């Protein structure tokens, strides 16, 4: 397709084709417009005539009062396709106002026709003037209809153009092809000859026309070219191969060069001294950090060089400078990063035209890394040379290559005495063989040796301790090329260490002794604590034991007395029946301990009256004795009448009653002794279990009320009448803990309170419990003297006591604190004048 547009046929065809296109375009544009104009003109004429006809019809109809004329007019209008609106407008002769009387078709707006855009309608008016009224007739037609008419008329024209246009183009194309055929044929022949020179040839023409002559010339030329081509082809083939190979080599070389330059951070430049303009390689641009828009002028060059080096470098690039070579280490700016770097600048002037040195070529290499290493090496060499540590550099056979002054100073050798020898020269019989073997094995494995201590000897026989750090120097192939040893003189440290070791031994011994002493003290304190607690308990225990023991003792004496009385009676004179009755009565009737004297007297009176009524025939004296005995034995009138009568039936009733009284007394005393023995056993059992700590591990739920009550009972002997004790403990409250330890806790707090109140007349102690946020708080309050604020945090400390002179051990509250903590609780003391409160907070027991 593209070749067609470039062909001679196309070029011929174009002018031919343009002409009909232009003509047809003009026709297609102007013809419809002209058609429309003519149609409008014609339509206006028709409208004018129609308006005239209608106006005449109306005028005549009105004048002759025969509206048939109007009917005819309407029929005329209806049949006339030239217009689609007709209106009668009456004009008032006086006011000149207009009134639309009627329109046809009916309902069409007169206003619409007269006031709307005239481009949509065309209309014509014609006046009438009848005898009754005058006005005018307006006839109108929509432009749209005219446009439709124009379209209808133009349709065949457009169709003709549409069909004719491609036909014309094709026709013209054929004409063009015919005209250009000889030229094309010749062109094709030449092309074929060019493509395949051996098989196609341009035939000689016999025509004498211009085309024929041209063909002949081409035929000859073609032949010549064919021969030349053959020759050139061979040469070209060789050349092409050579060029390709060379190009490849050059490309590779160029890439290698760029890579090498990048690695070496080296790039080249060229400066034209006549105008100061310069060029640089891609690698140099990268080194300098410059982009393509950087000005490669003398100003740009100045911008690249750090100010202090400009005077050294820039004169060389002046045109009149006679120096041939420049080689300097300078600092340049990297334009991208803005930082400076060290670079090596080399430049050489070249001969230009007329023998002038007007060109400089050279290289710039970034040597920052080398500089850094150089400086680093310099610093390291300073360190090695002047450090207080000894430094030895040896080759791979451990022969010493270099030592620093510190080593010479330490050993007393001179440099030349050491160089070429191995470090074994410093070792002697005291040097530890194991250490030497260890060093050798490590070095054999190319491993680093660090902090190895070794004893060496100097030239003058001075022994010294060294701490060795040896690093093998490895080549790129990981082969050992030598060693660097850094040795610290630790002789002094060793001496100190020896001294310290001896001191440590003494200290250890002292510490051991101290620990033992502390352990003993600790045990003593523990025992003391326990003894103190036992002491507290013992006082209570003594009280508890004292009462029952006294009871037992009194009981025993009474028993002795009763027994004496029983044996004073003539027991042998009591019959079996009488014994039976005595035992029965003594078993069933218990004596009452507390009966008032009045009651006894009344009971005896009643008994005497009763006995008199029985008419036993006894004397008054005898009856009186009997009544006394009955009442003593609690055999009373009204209660035991049957028993009384039964007893009165016995001959020796008096003796029997005495025996009953004795036996009742014995029963009472034995019962009391039993009870006292039980109490004593219980007290002793509790004391024993505490002393042996039998229940120490028993962690159980403890009833607070019972636990605290038992303590209060224990302290009963210490509490005087002046102590007002109020206890308000919720009966159901329980806490988890050890009964014995809690016992100890409360007893210490109560004892503390009793001691605090010792010198007061009014002694108040109140113990109560509260619950807050799921915790149980037990408060021990007393109205004792206030505890000074400074002492509040000391009172729980071990052996802290404010009553040392009164025998305080300083243990009580420390025990309290310990027990509270053991029970996962806390204790606080609030002391204000008139009230000191110990609030102990326990966690509520788990369900």
């Amino acid at each position, binding site marked *: 397709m593209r070749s067609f547009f470039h062909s001679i046929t196309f070029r011929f065809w174009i002018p031919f084709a343009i002409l009909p296109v232009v003509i047809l375009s003009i026709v297609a544009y102007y013809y419809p417009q002209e058609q429309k104009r003519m149609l409008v003109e014609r339509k206006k004429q028709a409208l004018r005539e129609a308006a005239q006809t209608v106006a005449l019809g109306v005028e005549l109809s009105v004048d002759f009062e025969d*509206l048939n004329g*109007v*009917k005819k007019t*309407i029929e005329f209008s*209806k049949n006339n396709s030239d217009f689609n609106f007709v209106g009668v407008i009456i004009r008032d002769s006086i006011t000149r106002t207009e009134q639309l009387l*009627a*329109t046809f078709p009916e309902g069409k707006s007169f206003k619409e026709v007269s006031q709307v855009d005239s481009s949509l309608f065309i209309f014509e008016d014609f006046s009438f003037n009848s005898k009754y009224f005058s006005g005018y007739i307006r006839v109108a037609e929509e432009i749209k209809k005219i446009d439709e008419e124009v379209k209808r008329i133009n349709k065949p024209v457009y169709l003709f153009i549409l069909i004719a246009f491609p036909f014309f183009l094709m026709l013209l194309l054929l004409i063009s092809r015919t005209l250009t055929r000889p030229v094309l044929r010749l062109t094709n022949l030449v092309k074929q000859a060019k493509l395949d020179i051996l098989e196609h040839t341009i035939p000689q023409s016999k025509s004498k026309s211009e085309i024929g002559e041209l063909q002949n010339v081409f035929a000859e030329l073609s032949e010549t070219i064919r021969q030349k081509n053959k020759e050139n082809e061979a040469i070209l083939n060789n050349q092409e191969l050579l060029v390709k190979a060379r190009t490849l080599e050059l490309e590779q070389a160029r890439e290698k060069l760029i890579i090498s330059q990048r690695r070496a951070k080296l790039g080249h430049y060229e400066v034209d001294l006549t105008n100061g303009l310069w060029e640089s390689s891609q690698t140099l641009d990268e080194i300098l950090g410059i982009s393509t828009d950087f000005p490669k002028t003398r100003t740009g060059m100045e911008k690249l060089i750090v100010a202090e080096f400009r005077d050294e470098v820039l004169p060389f690039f002046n045109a009149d400078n006679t120096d041939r070579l420049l080689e300097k280490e300078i600092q340049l700016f990297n334009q991208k990063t803005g930082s400076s770097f060290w670079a090596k600048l080399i430049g050489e002037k070249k001969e230009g035209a007329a023998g002038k040195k007007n060109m400089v070529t050279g290289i710039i290499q970034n040597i920052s890394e080398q500089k850094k290493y150089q400086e680093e090496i310099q610093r390291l060499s300073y360190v090695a040379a002047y450090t207080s540590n000894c430094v030895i550099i040896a080759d791979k056979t451990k022969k010493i290559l270099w030592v620093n002054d510190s080593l010479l100073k330490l050993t007393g050798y001179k440099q030349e005495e050491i160089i070429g020898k191995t470090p074994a020269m410093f070792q002697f019989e005291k040097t530890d063989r194991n250490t030497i073997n260890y060093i050798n094995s490590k070095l054999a494995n190319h491993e680093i040796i660090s902090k190895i201590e070794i004893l060496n000897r100097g030239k003058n026989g001075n022994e010294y301790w060294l701490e060795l750090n040896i690093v093998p120097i490895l080549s790129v192939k990981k082969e050992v090329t030598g060693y660097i040893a850094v040795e610290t003189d630790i002789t002094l440290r060793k001496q100190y260490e020896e001294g310290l070791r001896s001191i440590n031994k003494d200290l250890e011994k002292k510490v051991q002794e101290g620990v033992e002493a502390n352990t003993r003290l600790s045990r003593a304190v523990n025992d003391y604590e326990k003894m103190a607690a036992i002491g507290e308990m013992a006082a209570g225990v003594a009280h508890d034991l004292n009462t029952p023991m006294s009871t037992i003792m009194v009981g025993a004496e009474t028993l002795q007395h009763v027994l004496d009385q029983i044996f004073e009676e003539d027991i042998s004179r009591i019959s079996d029946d009488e014994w039976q009755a005595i035992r029965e009565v003594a078993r069933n009737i218990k004596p009452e301990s507390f009966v008032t004297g009045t009651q006894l007297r009344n009971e005896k009176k009643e008994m005497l009256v009763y006995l008199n009524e029985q008419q036993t025939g006894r004397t008054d004296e005898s009856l009186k004795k009997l009544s006394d005995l009955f009442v003593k034995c609690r055999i009373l009138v009204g209660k035991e009448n049957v028993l009384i009568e039964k007893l009165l039936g016995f001959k020796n009733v008096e003796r029997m009653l005495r025996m009953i009284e004795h036996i009742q007394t014995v029963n009472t005393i034995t019962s009391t002794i039993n009870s006292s023995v039980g109490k004593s056993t219980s007290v002793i059992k509790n004391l024993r279990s505490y002393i042996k700590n039998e229940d120490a591990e028993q962690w159980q739920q403890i009833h607070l009320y019972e636990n605290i009550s038992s303590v209060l009972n224990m302290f009963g002997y210490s509490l005087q009448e002046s102590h007002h004790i109020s206890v308000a403990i919720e009966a159901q409250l329980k806490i988890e803990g050890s009964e014995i330890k809690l016992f100890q806790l409360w007893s210490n707090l109560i004892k503390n309170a009793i001691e605090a109140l010792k010198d007061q007349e009014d002694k108040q102690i109140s113990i109560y419990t509260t619950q807050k946020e799921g915790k149980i708080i037990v408060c021990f309050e007393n109205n004792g003297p206030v505890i000074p604020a400074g002492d509040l945090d000391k009172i729980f400390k071990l052996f802290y006591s404010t009553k040392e002179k009164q025998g305080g051990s300083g243990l009580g509250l420390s025990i309290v604190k310990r027990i509270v903590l053991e029970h996962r609780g806390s204790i606080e003391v609030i002391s204000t004048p008139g009230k000191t409160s110990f609030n102990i907070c326990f966690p509520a027991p788990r369900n």
Partner: protein
Amino acid sequence: MFTFGQTAFKDIAVVQNQTGFINGRLKDVQGVFLGKYSRWPATKEQTTIVLPSSKCASATLISSVIYKSSVKEMQKYWLSLVFQGRTSPPVFLDSDAEIIAYVLKTPGAIGVIAAESRKTVDNKYLFLFVE
């Protein structure tokens, strides 16, 4: 629109070609002379309205009674109606006698005259209005 004026109704009479064109309802009589019927509803015959021309002596009376306007306005009314093709044109005659004669000879015709001119007409063709 025009309406019949009750005050002058007794002064006019309607003459018809045939009995039964109209049923005497005022609305129907009104409709006839306003050109609402092109055919009689009863007979389906074509209607012909006959009215006095401007030369007729009763023209002013009739136009004022029936059309409540001048003769000129009556003419304009009918011109408008006819021009719009809504009805056939009425016949305008120069005297009541001509009207009577035309009505009586023209089938489907109906006209209006001055009441005083009715004497020549058989009552069966007349339609009179009582005040």
